[in-house]
């Protein structure tokens, strides 16, 4: 049986507001609500809502023959809940068809997998909980931020109970091998690896409306022809794309929605591939060999490494400044601090400090609110300065855990008295 898997990524970071050094210690709100809200509104209107509708119709029309999977970051989900609950509802509707799978990732699209095993595990768990809460299913396949993967990360994922991972089919890890097979982890073969076919995925995501491309215009018929030319033993095609491909990167006027309406029909009719979700494939297919990835890979740029986020001194300093109190943060219970901790870890905050755009003009698909990496860095460092101060001052769980029963009673009495006084004060003020 041959499988084709449509896997869509959605991530929206909490963009940071302009935060001056003189705000440090005085103002603890870090987000640009206006930009975040208008961004989510726009993308929901142009992409998520119409595309979800299209997929739902296709699922209904094709009965059991059409399936898709999603990887949605926690910060995207949070913003949908805040600004566009109708987007959550339409994903729930998709989930109820039973033809849609959700994969797990670090909650806030962070780079934590290369920094701390403990924190990585926490964030993946938090994301998994969020998915279960909203869509009623527990993810069984993992998809790291920007497809970051290595043998070691694979092992961590397996230890968390995931059976499979989606990684980038980068040339430098594959060599002569094809991405159209299932592989397994080099340290522990129990973890199955699915690889993104970046050629075919980018044909749609990047080149669909590029008139200078020799294959323009791209039609579902053309894709079907290409797929039929694949050697018969190549049995898996993973098309992994940002969901914003549909309606944002490729605008409605480019015909992308018509193309996506047509594609499932044509593939089902004219090829021997059937639509599957990642966990279907992992259950049904057999790995052909071990794939060893000693160094971290990603789907970014030509290099497919981490240099887009951690390639220069600014990024490294910012990264270290954010993670330097990681042990301490694990003892903090203040929910606002924890929330900020996740939001600040978003990989976008480091991507904005990249100097790589200077050379290649930057990816047209990525939004960067800053005109230079230096501004992005200063703003982020000011915020981290304030954040770290709060972490230091925040009450620690450990301190309280060390209290004796009598001390706990005393503390309760003390706080109750203070509370009563405040209530009294409030009553007086009202009068």
């Amino acid at each position, binding site marked *: 049986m041959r499988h084709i898997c449509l896997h869509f990524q959605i991530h929206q970071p909490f963009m940071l507001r302009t935060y001056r*050094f003189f705000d440090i210690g005085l103002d603890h709100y870090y987000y640009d609500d206006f930009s975040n809200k208008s961004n989510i509104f726009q993308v929901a209107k142009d992409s998520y809502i119409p595309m979800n509708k299209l997929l739902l119709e296709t699922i209904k029309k094709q009965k059991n023959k059409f399936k898709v999977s999603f990887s949605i970051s926690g910060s995207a989900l949070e913003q949908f809940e805040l600004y566009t609950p109708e987007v959550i509802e339409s994903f729930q509707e998709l989930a109820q068809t039973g033809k849609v799978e959700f994969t797990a990732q670090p909650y806030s699209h962070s780079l934590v997998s290369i920094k701390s095993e403990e924190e990585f595990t926490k964030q993946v768990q938090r994301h998994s909980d969020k998915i279960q809460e909203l869509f009623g299913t527990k993810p069984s396949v993992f998809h790291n931020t920007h497809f970051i993967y290595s043998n070691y990360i694979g092992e961590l994922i397996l230890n968390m109970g995931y059976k499979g991972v989606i990684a980038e089919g980068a040339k430098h890890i594959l060599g002569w091998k094809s991405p159209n097979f299932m592989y397994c982890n080099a340290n522990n073969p129990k973890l199955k690896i699915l690889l993104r076919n970046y050629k075919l995925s980018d044909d749609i995501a990047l080149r669909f409306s590029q008139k200078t491309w020799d294959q323009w215009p791209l039609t579902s018929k053309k894709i079907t022809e290409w797929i039929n030319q694949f050697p018969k033993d190549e049995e898996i095609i993973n098309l992994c794309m940002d969901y914003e491909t549909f309606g944002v990167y490729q605008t409605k006027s480019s015909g992308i929605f018509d193309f996506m309406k047509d594609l499932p029909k044509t593939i089902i009719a004219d090829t021997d591939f059937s639509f599957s979700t990642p966990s279907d494939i992992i259950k049904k297919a057999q790995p052909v060999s071990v794939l060893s990835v000693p160094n971290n890979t990603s789907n970014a740029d030509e290099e497919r490494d981490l240099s887009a986020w951690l390639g220069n001194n600014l990024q490294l300093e*910012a990264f270290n400044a954010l993670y330097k109190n990681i042990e301490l943060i694990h003892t903090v219970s203040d929910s606002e601090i924890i929330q900020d901790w996740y939001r600040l870890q978003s990989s976008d905050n480091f991507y904005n400090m990249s100097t790589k755009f200077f050379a290649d003009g930057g990816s047209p698909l990525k939004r960067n609110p800053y005109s230079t990496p*230096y*501004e992005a860095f200063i703003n982020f*460092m000011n915020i981290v300065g304030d954040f770290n101060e709060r972490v230091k001052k925040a009450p620690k769980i450990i301190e309280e855990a060390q209290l004796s029963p009598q001390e706990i009673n005393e503390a309760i009495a003390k706080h109750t008295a203070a509370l009563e006084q405040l209530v009294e004060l409030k009553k007086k003020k009202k009068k």
Partner: protein
Amino acid sequence: MKVLMFGWEFPPHISGGLGTACYGLTRAMAQQDLEIIFIVPRTWGDEETELMDVVGANHVPVSVRKYIFNEEAVSSETNIQYVEIDSNIIPYVTTEEYYNIINKRSSSSKQLQKYYQTEQSDTIDFEGGYGTNLIKEVADYAYVAREIAQKFEFDIIHSHDWLTYDAGIAAKEVSKKPLVIHVHATEFDRSGMHVNQVVYDIERRGMHGADAVITVSNLTRSTVIKHYGIDESKITTVYNGVDNVQLSTPREFVKNTDDKIVTFLGRITFQKGPEYFIEAAAKVLQRKKNVKFVMAGSGDMLEKMMWRASELGISENFYFTGFLRGDDVIHMLSISDVYVMPSVSEPFGISPLEAMRSNVPVIISKQSGVSEILKHAIKIDFWDVDSMADAIYGIVSYQGLDSMFKTFVKSEVDSIKWDSAAIKVKQIYQETLSKA
């Protein structure tokens, strides 16, 4: 190709950006097989007089000599004729200032000093005897230009800034050769909204009379289009270059304090935005005490700035050096940790490039031409004191910034060469000549 160029002083009498730009451009042009007859107004008193040659019906003394560039890169065969004309034309001052300088020189030597400290020369001699009105000087200069144009052979005329536009036009009328006007600044940059109508008219006349206009940035280009009504197709932007550090006595400068030093260096005038620098300094000092701010330079707003610093209570960390010259400039830059150029209007702005040459991170206003070509600089609006303060705080507080700038700043500034400017100017000559 032979060029008749109306320009500004060469070393040793470099008095500011315009002279530096003329020198750098001419030297690079000499390497592009261009012959140059370089005409300069001679306001100094200490030039050699042996070479003096008298030409012209009105007995204007003119000295003609060969200028030899020191650098080996320029072959000694290169023919640059350096022609000096006695004239009281002085760049960088407004007509009002000029009037003050020439007329009140006996009564207010103090004021004189103030202006002339800004001009990096204490050898200026005002005993020219050609009248006390700058506008009249410009007209006289044009008259001389007419004489010169008859005396020399050339293919094209090139005039630098408004004081020489009329000279260029006069030379064009006599010789029927095409005229290229080089706009280093406009009256709008120098005077803000208080534009001197006479100067504006001269500028407008020059730009309209020219066959091609060169601007030092797209910022200036748009001013020329918008305020002077010049056809876009006639105007080309040619960015300035920057030369290597020229220390008269090579040495290392040592910083004697652990405090961070933040520097403003330039004329203390409306155009350079010194007041925004002071306001930003006050904001930084509220949070960080181990920072010293230096305002180096002199100008008509100096006293006001000193009052403002003490009003804000930051005088303890805010220093005024007065006018710096020669090696002192390089000294000041090399011990700086941040260089700020908050100019309200800066057609190009070569000073941040000089700071970068000394490995100093720079914060520049978006209202400067140089911000169009620099990548490794923090760019802010001149009025945005909060952003400016934040950028200063960031550079003195976060180490990563410093090391990033150290990595990129020097190599970026080294890539901004006069050679590419000279090549572009030559192209403009060729295009202009082919149209004529």
